[in-house]
């Protein structure tokens, strides 16, 4: 299938043909193909367009290094932009589309930018688009039209993702020859081993090269080793799994692509899985990647990495061209000659920049193909795709000798040498050193828990890769205390005889000045690097950012080193002096879905629900977020608007009796011989004097002297307090108290336990609340004498042991009944039943808010972290002696000075509503900037007073009761005169709550 597919060979399942579409056109391939191999087999040369100049781009590599053959895969909600065709396993019905071109791939109007490319050198946008000043937004719109490669889906992805935490003794990343021998040896020692590889099968380069191990075809060794590893219970092998980042303390993050090789995941299965692996020892055997050579027109479709061409031939039986030229500076590309021959292609010449002859094996591969030593490809020729190359002879490594020769070909296989994949090692802050012999950075040394093996170390012979793998496996097993059997498994391979690589960072130009690309994704050419250098962007980091070299989706895998080398050349220094840019996770791009797992959307963060959640829902409550909780806001009756319901509920409490769920309050059990002393130091007010069976309002500060939290706490027995906190601060208050109990005053005997989940609570409030309580626990027990204001009673309701507190947030006669949460609904229903005769009704947060504003109770809107106790009028609660948290810094000048904002009430003078979030002004602003005197923290319509009221924080507010100011809201264009009043609007003497 496909004109470029050889009739036999390769590691394909020829019995399973697959159909796929590219840009709407039907093609076919085989099970085992990648999209790249299938496109190449079908002779598709142009696959995409480059970023800036929209130049045509074909397949260049064969794996993660691919810089430019990117497509949009799948469709609709599953469409995925920027997918490298080299990484896509073919499946039946696959759909791919070209991207970043309009109207189409072959005729792309964006290519105009190629014609005006002289006007668009690196960083051109910094120098222009500035006139007229107001027009940038217009230019920017045009620039954004040209931005980006593919399009994201616009619908939510139907697939699911998950995460798992794994632990092992030895983690091996990369299942090439080095990684496999490391894993095998570590496994033999009995250590818990994990082996990951990006590819769908193990083997690394062994799948693409023709190699021998232990005197047999390497495939045999490969299959034996995979079989062995697969059968060991202490080994976990995962393919299609990319280790994308190294994190502290040997944690490797990987993503397993469970179902990308099929059209869609099986029912219930996840598409990708984030695998977080904590490894005691890590072996990096991530291999090396071949790199490009900067010569004229090196971006033309038909120019490919020699290793990729070899791989397509060997694994997929695809000839990437019919007539090929190989251009190299090292021995490795010679194998491509043999590989191409195997699939029926003609190789007309090997152009080798070196003057020395290659090593023995290379010459064997060469056979009778013409070898042009000391020569280079100067430029490519062709229309869209390659038609010929011009070859010249190098005089001295820099200048050309004589006239170039043109060779007609449709494929150019290049090898500029190999660059080790040191990414993960570098994420681990591992130091790199420059190895002159291979012209690349390699790990400087192994770290205590990180070993490197194979071509990542710059050691490219199979023999050494295998050996290093064994050593790393044995060493890491030893480090975790596992015993190796007497006979480690050390496979052997023929000793390679190679001639050294010749650095070839730039090919001189001859006549025609075709662009010599460094980064073919972002269209960064040698002249851009020269311009950057000329303009002073001589640091590698400046070079990268000014030219965007290596900033594309491939992160410059095949190009960065060429950029560095050319910068070194221009700076007249060596590459190590220039340094390198920073390797950052992810190793290859990772789907956001995989990083998020199941925790997004409705599951972004956990929700706390009260034990009555279902009851509220059944009773039509409107549930809303309140911190981490879901709480009922109001309970609309049929035909009632939200506002109606809220006002009805408010009136109901003031006039009859209401009941509300306050289970979300923070509750802390404080026990121990020093519990009272401890509270004395946590709160600003006194606790030791509190009698058993009584509760008290308490206020606590942060150590910086500002108010932290408030709540009522109760002395249940001599050494036992039942503390409540605000809903939002339940966790922080407990942590705060723990730090003091454990580290500041450890000598105090006090034990703290969160009981927020143990106890649920309801507030029973309103003039009839005592009658309802009486019906539940007996009139005598509910009387003012037995249960006075701020009194507490332990009693039973519905045969459940409960706590009844005589406290009130609403300002009405009221009680809080706390009940073990599993019995809460039973007691709630019992109270409702008992209250029927008094027309009891539930009320929600909204009514509670109005009730508390009427009563002048403060909540987080007032306790906003900037208020002092005195700002709220609580200065008399503050003890004047002894230690308590926050006391000392509450005495600072700015906290006690005049001119602070104080809590007051505000009342609309003309009866119009007080705008929410209004600022307080002394004079009307009439829309002009004005100095504010404070702000309205909460406001509402008070049905009880039939007035528009609010609480406000106003500069020296307590001294200006009676004054009229303006509640100003430029956001809504409203400005309302308000009178400054005391913040308690109803029952200032507390007769209702005490009565």
């Amino acid at each position, binding site marked *: 299938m496909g004109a470029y597919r050889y009739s036999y060979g390769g590691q394909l399942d020829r019995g399973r043909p697959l159909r796929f579409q590219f840009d709407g056109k039907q093609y076919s391939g085989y099970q085992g193909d990648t999209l790249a191999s299938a496109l190449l087999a079908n002779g598709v040369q142009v696959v995409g367009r480059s970023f800036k100049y929209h130049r045509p781009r074909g397949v260049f590599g064969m794996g993660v290094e691919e810089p430019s053959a990117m497509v949009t895969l799948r469709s609709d909600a599953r469409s995925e932009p920027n997918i490298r065709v080299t990484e896509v396993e073919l499946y039946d019905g696959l759909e791919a589309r070209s991207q970043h071109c309009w109207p189409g791939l072959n005729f792309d109007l964006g290519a105009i930018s190629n014609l005006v490319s002289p006007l668009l050198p690196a960083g051109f946008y910094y120098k222009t688009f500035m006139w007229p000043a107001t027009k940038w937004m217009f230019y920017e719109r045009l620039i954004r039209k040209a931005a980006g490669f593919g399009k994201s889906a616009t619908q939510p992805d139907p697939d699911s993702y998950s995460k798992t935490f794994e632990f092992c003794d030895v983690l091996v990343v990369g299942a090439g020859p080095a990684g496999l021998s490391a894993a095998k040896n570590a496994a033999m020692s009995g250590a818990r081993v994990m082996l990951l590889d990006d590819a769908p099968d193990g083997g690394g380069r062994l799948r693409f090269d023709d190699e021998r191990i232990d005197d047999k075809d390497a495939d045999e060794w490969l299959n034996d080793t995979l079989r062995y590893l697969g059968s060991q219970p202490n080994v976990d092998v995962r393919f299609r799994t990319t280790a994308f980042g190294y994190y502290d*303390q040997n944690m490797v993050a990987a993503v397993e692509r469970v179902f990308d090789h099929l059209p869609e995941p099986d029912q219930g299965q996840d598409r990708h899985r984030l695998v977080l692996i904590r490894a005691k020892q890590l072996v990096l055997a991530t291999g090396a990647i071949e790199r490009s050579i900067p010569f004229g027109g090196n971006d033309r479709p038909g120019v490919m990495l020699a290793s990729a061409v070899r791989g397509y031939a060997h694994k997929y039986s695809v000839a990437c061209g019919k007539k090929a030229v190989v251009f190299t500076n090292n021995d490795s590309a010679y194998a491509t000659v043999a590989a191409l021959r195997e699939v029926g292609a003609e190789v007309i010449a090997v152009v080798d920049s070196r003057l020395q002859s290659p090593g023995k094996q290379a010459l064997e591969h060469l056979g009778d193909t013409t070898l042009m030593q000391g020569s280079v490809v100067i430029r490519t020729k062709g229309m869209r795709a390659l038609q010929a190359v011009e070859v010249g002879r190098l005089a001295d490594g820099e200048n050309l000798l004589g006239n170039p020769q043109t060779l007609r070909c449709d494929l150019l296989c290049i090898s500029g040498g190999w660059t080790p994949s040191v990414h993960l090692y570098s994420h681990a802050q591992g130091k790199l050193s420059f190895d002159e012999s291979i012209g690349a950075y390699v790990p400087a040394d192994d770290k205590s828990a990180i070993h490197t093996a194979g071509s990542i170390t710059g050691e490219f012979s199979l023999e050494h890769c295998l050996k290093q793998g064994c050593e790393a496996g044995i060493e890491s097993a030893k480090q975790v205390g596992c015993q190796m059997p007497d006979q480690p498994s050390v496979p052997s391979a023929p000793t390679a005889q190679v001639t050294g690589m010749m650095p070839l960072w730039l090919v001189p130009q001859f006549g025609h000045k075709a662009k010599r690309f460094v980064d073919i994704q972002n269209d960064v050419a040698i002249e851009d690097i020269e311009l950057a250098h000329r303009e002073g962007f001589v640091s590698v980091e400046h070079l990268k950012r000014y030219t965007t070299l290596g900033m594309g989706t491939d992160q410059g895998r095949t190009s960065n080193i060429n950029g560095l080398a050319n910068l070194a050349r221009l700076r007249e220094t060596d590459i190590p002096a220039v340094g390198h840019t920073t390797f950052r996770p992810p190793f290859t791009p990772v789907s956001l879905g995989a990083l998020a797992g199941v925790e997004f959307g409705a599951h972004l963060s956990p929700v706390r629900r009260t034990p009555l959640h279902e009851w509220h829902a059944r009773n039509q409550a409107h549930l809303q977020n309140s911190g981490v909780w879901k709480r009922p806001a109001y309970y609309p009756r049929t035909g009632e608007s939200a506002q109606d319901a809220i006002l009805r509920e408010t009136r109901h409490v003031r006039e009859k009796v209401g009941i509300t769920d306050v289970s979300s309050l923070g509750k802390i059990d404080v026990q121990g011989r020093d519990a009272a002393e401890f509270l004395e130091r946590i709160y600003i007010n006194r606790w030791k004097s509190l009698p058993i069976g009584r509760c008290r309002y308490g206020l606590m500060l942060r*150590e*910086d002297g500002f108010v932290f939290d408030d709540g009522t706490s109760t002395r249940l027995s001599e050494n036992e307090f039942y503390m409540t906190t605000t809903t939002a601060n339940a966790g922080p208050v407990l*942590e705060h108290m723990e730090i003091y109990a*454990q580290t500041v005053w*450890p000598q105090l005997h006090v034990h703290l336990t969160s009981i927020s989940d143990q106890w649920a609570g309801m507030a029973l409030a309103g003039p009839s609340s005592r009658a309802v309580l009486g019906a539940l626990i007996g009139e005598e027990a509910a009387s003012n004498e037995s249960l006075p204001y701020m009194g507490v009673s332990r009693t039973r309701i519905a045969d459940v042991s409960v706590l009844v507190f005589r406290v009130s947030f609403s300002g009405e006669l009221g009680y809080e009944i706390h009940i073990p949460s599993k019995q809460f609904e039973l007691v709630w229903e019992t109270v409702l039943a008992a209250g029927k005769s008094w027309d009891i009704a539930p009320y929600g947060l909204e009514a509670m808010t109005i009730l508390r504003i009427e009563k002048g109770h403060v909540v987080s809107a007032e306790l906003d972290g900037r208020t002092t106790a005195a700002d709220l009028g609580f200065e008399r609660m503050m003890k004047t002696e002894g*230690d308590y948290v926050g006391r000392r810094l509450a005495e*600072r000048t700015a906290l006690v000075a005049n001119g602070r904002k104080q809590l007051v009430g505000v009342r609309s003078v003309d009866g119009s509503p007080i705008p929410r979030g209004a600022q307080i002004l002394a004079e009307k602003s009439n829309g002009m900037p004005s100095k504010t005197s404070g702000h309205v923290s909460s406001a509402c319509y008070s049905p009880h007073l039939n007035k528009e009221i609010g609480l406000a924080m106003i500069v020296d507010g307590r001294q200006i009761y009676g004054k009229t100011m303006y509640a100003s809201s430029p956001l809504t264009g409203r400005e309302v005169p308000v009178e400054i009043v005391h913040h308690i609007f109803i029952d200032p003497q507390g007769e209702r709550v005490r009565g």
Partner: protein
Amino acid sequence: MLLIKCPWCGERAQIEFTYRGDATVERPDIEADEAQWYDYVYTRDNPRGEHTEWWHHTNGCRKWFKVRRNTWTHEILSSEPGVKKDS
């Protein structure tokens, strides 16, 4: 993800813990100068290198303890209980 060593529970994932910063500052006596209190609450050595800091095993044993950690390499050097019980 950091691997924090709780003196009681052993090495655990960072997501079980809450951080609280510099553990070398000591809470002064209540009668001490305001300047000392200012230092305690506000100023920090903030070193690049070894740093002693409070961590709380919030989703674990709920103990506060001190960790010595390198702020440059993130290497964890040691950890110890917050304060000995009998101090």
